[in-house]
């Protein structure tokens, strides 16, 4: 090689080495900056994007853990250590930084902007909250959370005409949004239009019963002079929420008008017994909680929601940091607990999942959903005894909940249980909630008990309720075939030889085409 060419190579090599060094250095810096933010596949988490923009671009922003107090690590023994020392002013500043981080990461995300609006609302900055919600609507005119926020704000200002108008827009965006429906109903009531309240609430509550909804409906019927319907509505409200003081008052007034004096007196006595002044006026509402506690709860609620946005964007670590921080501020924040349980379950970290679910069950002892989830958890771990115990516990605390009966019946079907009990459980599920899934479950119970005629009847009902289900129809045909076989075995054998499928009659009939119960998604609350 000539001297000239060699020196060229030398220079080139130096340049290349320098470039390589720069590149490596840059990569190392990126790695250090990002920390342990290993993205998790969205598919594994099974989430959809909800209101998030499909083409979301996540900015290169520092991890959230850098701006929050050190949270409990996501690995190791889970714990919820309450942070009672944070002062309100420091908390306000912290929340502002978190929201700033959120918007830096997701500048075009409606959900992130809505969190900002809720922060302003939390601070009492109603004008800023309203402006931010309007910005959400400029990005997405059907963004129901902004519509609900604005409607609520209008209502708090006493502008019920505006509240009604916006609430109607929200319901048009999402007919299932109960908050919008409640705001609309209250706005109509406050404008003296009870007959419209009935239209808004009556049918909707049959699909989605809510104590507040029945209370408002009761007020509407009372104003219309229909005291019987008012009484029935107030009764339902108290059944759904036994501590609903105002509903007892309404019940008492309705019964009094119907000359049901003893029931009126009992309801009024119940109303008086509550003695909870903080329920009755805005000024008194905070009587039993300190301002700092209320502020922490508000911040925790914001963090819990914000965490979901990070999760959807695959910033798993940031989401956990926020949820853990939410729990430090408010260990009773259900949303954060549910989110942690959900994520841990998806990651297969069963011990931690159970920890969070147990915590939720303690907070809501009357809610069977958590016991059902714990039961499924144990089932997935093949701890049959613990699983059965959890399912039975769910049934104990919610003896009128069809899903509890169904869950236990499915479990016993899958893992061997008393045939008679399985049938009784499935029958009760059908009685409480006669949907196709439960009829199919009952059919499986009958099959398990070798009662094919009864199974046929149940599957007929399932097919009738869900005619689109190919699976139910298939199983129905199988049961029919089995019945024919039982009547004429020779004929059936001939049919078999001609290639027709044989009814298995083994194990549970999958409900609605879903996978086995241990892999089913969480119960909808």
């Amino acid at each position: 090689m000539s001297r000239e060419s060699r020196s060229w190579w030398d220079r080139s090599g130096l340049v290349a080495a320098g470039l390589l060094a720069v590149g490596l250095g840059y990569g190392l810096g990126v790695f250090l900056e990002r920390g342990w933010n290993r993205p998790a596949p969205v598919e594994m988490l099974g989430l959809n994007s909800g209101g998030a923009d499909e083409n979301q671009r996540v900015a290169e922003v520092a991890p959230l853990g850098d701006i929050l107090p050190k949270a409990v690590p996501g690995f190791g023994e889970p714990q919820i250590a309450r942070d009672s020392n944070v002062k309100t002013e420091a908390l306000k500043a912290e929340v502002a930084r978190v929201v700033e981080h959120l918007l830096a990461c997701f500048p075009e995300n409606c959900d992130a902007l809505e969190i900002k609006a809720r922060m302003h609302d939390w601070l009492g900055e109603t004008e800023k909250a309203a402006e931010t919600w309007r910005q959400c609507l400029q990005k997405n005119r059907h963004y129901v959370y902004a519509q609900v926020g604005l409607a609520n704000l209008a209502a708090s200002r006493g502008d019920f005409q505006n509240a009604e108008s916006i609430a109607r827009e929200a319901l048009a965006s999402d007919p299932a949004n109960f908050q919008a429906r409640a705001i609309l109903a209250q706005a109509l009531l406050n404008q003296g239009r009870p007959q419209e309240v009935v239209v808004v609430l009556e049918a909707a509550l049959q699909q989605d019963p809510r104590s507040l909804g029945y209370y408002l409906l009761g007020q509407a019927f009372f104003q219309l002079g229909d005291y019987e319907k008012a009484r029935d509505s107030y009764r339902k409200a108290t059944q759904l929420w036994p501590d609903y003081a105002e509903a007892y008052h309404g019940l008492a007034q309705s019964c009094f008008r119907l000359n049901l004096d003893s029931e009126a007196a009992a309801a009024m006595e119940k109303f008086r017994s509550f003695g909870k002044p903080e329920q009755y006026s805005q000024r008194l509402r905070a009587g039993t909680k300190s301002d700092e506690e209320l502020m922490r709860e508000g911040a925790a609620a914001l963090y819990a929601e914000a965490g979901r946005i990070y999760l959807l964007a695959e910033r798993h670590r940031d989401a956990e940091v926020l949820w853990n921080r939410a729990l430090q501020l408010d260990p009773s924040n259900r949303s954060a607990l549910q989110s942690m349980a959900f994520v841990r379950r998806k990651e297969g970290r069963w011990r931690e999942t159970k920890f969070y679910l147990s915590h939720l069950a303690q907070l809501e002892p009357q809610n069977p959903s958590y016991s059902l989830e714990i039961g499924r958890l144990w089932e997935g771990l093949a701890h049959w005894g613990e699983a059965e115990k959890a399912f039975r516990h769910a049934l104990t605390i919610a003896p009128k909940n069809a899903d509890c009966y169904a869950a236990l019946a499915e479990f016993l079907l899958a893992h061997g249980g008393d045939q008679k009990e399985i049938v009784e459980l499935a029958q009760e599920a059908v009685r409480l909630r006669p949907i196709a899934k439960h009829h199919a479950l009952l059919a499986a119970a009958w099959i398990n008990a070798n009662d094919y005629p009864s199974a046929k009847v149940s599957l007929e009902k399932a097919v009738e309720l869900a005619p689109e289900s190919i699976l139910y129809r298939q199983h129905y045909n199988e049961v029919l075939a089995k019945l024919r076989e039982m009547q004429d075995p020779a004929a059936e054998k001939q049919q078999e030889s001609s290639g027709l499928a044989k009814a298995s009659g083994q194990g549970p009939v999958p409900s609605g085409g879903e996978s086995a119960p241990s892999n089913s998604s969480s119960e909808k609350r």
Partner: protein
Amino acid sequence: MVSKHWVQWAGTLLCLATFAGIIVFFFAGRRPEDVPAALPAANLPGQEGSGSFGKPTVPFGERRDGVWPSPRDGRKPEENCELPQFKDITRFSGISFCHTDGSSGSKYIVETVASGLATFDYDGDGQIDIYFLNGCPLGAESTGESPSNLFYRNLGQLRFSDITPQSAVGDTGYGLGVAVGDYNNDGFADLYLSNFGPNVLYRNNGDGTFTEVTAMSGVQAADPHKVGAGASFLDMDADGDLDLFVANYLVFSYERHVVSQWRGVTIYAGPERFLPLPSIVFRNEGDGSFVDISHQSGVAQYPGKGMGMVCGDYDDDGDTDVFVNNDGPPGNFLFRNNSQGFFEEVAALSGTAFAGSGLINGAMGVDCGDFDNDGRFDFYVTSYQGQFATLYRNLDGRLFEDVTLATGAGEGSFNQVTWGCGIVDLDNDGFRDLFFGCGHLIDNIDLLDGSTSYRARPVFLRNINGRRFQNASAACGLGALEPSVARGVAFDDLDDDGDWDIVILNSRLPAMLLRNDSPKERRWLQIQLLGTRSNRDGVGARVRVVAGNCVWVDEVRSGRGYQSHFGSRLHFGLGEQSQVDRIEVSWLGGGRDVIERIPANQILLVIEGRGWYAAWSDSARVGGTQP
């Protein structure tokens, strides 16, 4: 060559045109995505109009019971546009009163509930005078000269003169509530002050001066930790002299002073942090002294957070009952009189303890009047923010119904704290309207909650044919007022022109005098009662006025609204009736006077058992000892 240049120029122009089009498109042609039309900028409290001033949407004729009177003139209510006009003439009136609540930053709860005022004729000259209660420095700051209550004499034509020193009613205590009544039946109205600490009774000497007679009369209620509230003179046993019913708010001491926090900001503590107090009942012994019969009367067993109160015979049994509104639990009290001075508390049974929704409101003030002209007295109670001022309609003399939402009687009140109020016919159309003052009690609320405001304007709800109310505040000139922090509100005809004028005491601010310029084609009648066998003021007497097919009833009351007193001279708006066919006066104790065929537009003096006098002249004045 020519064609080549042409092509070049054409190409260049085309490019420039395209570029210009793009610029225009981006900067002028596009608009932000339309936001739904239902999202206007917020109508901020404190700006022009407060709350919703939109057209009411309650359809006409949606009543259930069908027993309400039919529309008077057959026209739709919206067509009846003869509204009163309220004009702030304070600066021309000579009234320079500026209230102090004694605040110094310590945020004592007492500061939030001051004060009431009284309008009454103290010297019998036929002109209504004004007495303002005042606060004073509190706690360690209470040294040196203290401001006093102020008394203004009405000189006529809405001009007033401060006569506090010469009248000797300039109490320097912390004034909260006031009642007016001639407790000794000497023909001159006396004053009772409900204070933080000991109360005060001023006896009117009849010569333009008063004498403080608290100790000798026995009505001091001298607990230094008592935060007083509204008070009323009433003849509870119909023995011809005025007794005293005194509501109380709560127990407060500097040693147990607390504040609250909200969003990290220090605010006044709420009443739930303090102990309640029962009302006090003093029986007039007839010799200038009173005896505390709170326990015997049954009232002492009902502690509450009393604020406003009003007396009225709601059950039409001929005696005087008492309504005390409480600021929060346990709800309002309705004390039904058994005619012997014993009171049974029946609010919950009657449906007046709570709002119809079951909420226990933070109730501030109350007035009593017949808003629907059915001959029965209804109650209107103002409230805290996030609650409606509540209208309780008297159904049958026993039960009440919350008709606030059905009638629109709560419009303009939801996002404000509402205080002094009146069920008063401000436009003389024969239907009593609603009026209330607004203003928050958390003085830094603007930092904490954008849905309300510290200062606000009063609200006038016009009564549409006794069935519903329409917020006419802006149309009546209230929208032009400076937002203030109202507490006591009083209604009286201060210029004797036949319509109610309005005086508002504002916390920490100058008082406001609103002249009412109602349409003059509407007729009216005012009646001043003078008892001879009954108490001198005719307190508790019921007056029934009949004109054509219209009937109105009212009672003489002492103490009403927010810890205030007004309306001793009864006012009836007659609409287009030019003559009153019949006036029936039912005095406490059973006496009855009937007057027939009285022309409208005058002030009558009706003397028990002796007839009546028209207008107000020296010869018609009856004073001194009982004739």
